[in-house]
């Protein structure tokens, strides 16, 4: 009688016996959290361009191929030529984290050490009056009574030392209090924090829980004597802005 069909029938009947209504507590808690949680932005990139004629299509494919070849060439060529000038730092603080440096540990407030040294970011170090200041993400992101907090850190801070060997100021965006292991949503991020053209520029260099975000760079205008950081067209995976915590 323990054939599969009778077993499935018995199991199905047993499954029917559990609760069928959701308790109010988790639903209300979720709705409360949603009140202060922003949605993820989506880059709307069409899969194909409408009414593209064959010549344009071939030209587009050729252009992509040329770019791909160029990228491959740059990637495989020796890092320095004989007698040639050493490469100059690029203007953008964007960096690419080597694959080996990616997921290291479950993101917490732990200091993350990339497997290979991150390149020096461009721009200037943060001024001393910004270092040590903490901000909440604006609009606030709150989940299970934890909120995302930006901290601007000096070059000698343990996080900055781990990433840049003490050569750059940096930032962390972490859950406060520290997130519980296993949480499904953790945009905890770390990277360089620099001044470029009078604005704060942060680069998402280590984002263990959301690898597609690595390399995103966001610029913030510094308003109200540093109490408000206002995003200047921040890309997806970064944050719209920050408000200083009391």
């Amino acid at each position: 009688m323990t054939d599969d069909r009778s077993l499935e029938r018995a199991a199905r009947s047993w499954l029917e016996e559990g609760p069928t209504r959701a308790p109010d507590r988790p639903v209300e808690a979720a709705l409360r959290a949603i009140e202060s949680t922003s949605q993820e932005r989506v880059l709307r990139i069409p899969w194909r361009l409408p009414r593209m004629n064959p010549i344009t299509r071939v030209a587009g494919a050729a252009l992509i191929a040329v770019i791909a070849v160029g990228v491959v060439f740059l990637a495989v060529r020796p890092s320095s030529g004989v007698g040639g000038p050493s490469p100059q730092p690029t203007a953008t603080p964007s960096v690419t984290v080597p694959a080996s440096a990616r997921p290291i540990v479950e993101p917490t407030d732990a200091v993350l050490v990339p497997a290979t040294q991150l390149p020096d970011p461009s721009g200037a170090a943060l001024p001393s009056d910004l270092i040590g200041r903490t901000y909440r993400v604006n609009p606030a992101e709150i989940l299970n009574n934890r909120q995302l907090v930006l901290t601007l850190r000096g070059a000698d801070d343990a996080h900055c030392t781990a990433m840049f060997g003490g050569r750059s100021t940096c930032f962390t965006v972490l859950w406060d209090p520290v997130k519980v292991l296993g949480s499904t949503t953790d945009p905890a991020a770390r990277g360089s924090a620099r001044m470029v053209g009078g604005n704060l520029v942060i680069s998402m260099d280590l984002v263990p829980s959301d690898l597609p975000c690595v390399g995103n760079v966001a610029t913030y205008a510094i308003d109200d004597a540093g109490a408000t950081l206002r995003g200047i067209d921040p890309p997806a995976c970064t944050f719209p802005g920050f408000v200083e915590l009391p």
Partner: protein
Amino acid sequence: MDQTLVAQARQGDREAFAVLVHQVSDSLYAVAFRILRDSGRAEDALQNALVLAWRRIPRLRDPERFEAWIHRILVHACYDESRRARQWTASVRVVSVGGHSTPDGTHAVADRDELERAFRRLSVDQRAVFVLHHYLGLPLVEVAELLEIPAGTARSRLHYAIAGLRDALTADAEPIAHGGRLA
């Protein structure tokens, strides 16, 4: 499901999303409870899934697939809850203490406690397929689509879930069958 509400929620309308939440939360909780077999963890999974769904709903391409999409988020929240629970829960070998009167397992199948124990021994992804198929009544092809796994994988997980249940029930029954000694 009102697709207008889904479209409004995608545009950031919290009230529209709240209406959707009230429409689907019973089903989501019922599924979470049956996968996790624990009301507290099911509540946590539901709460996390709802918040994550709010954050991610702009990514939902097809509003008609809202229910399947949010159930997928819930199942993944259950995976996370289960993983977290494993870090804190010691593996316990549950020992049967009676209730078997026949060696063929007929009685065992009817015994809800035995089913509970046997079900808990399945992996959480086997449980998910089993619950979606046998509780929600989704065909295996739809289960596979919902979980974004190949149909063959869904079929295999269901097969191993049933085999696992059968083996667990048989294992519980065996000591009695061979002289009534408890394992």
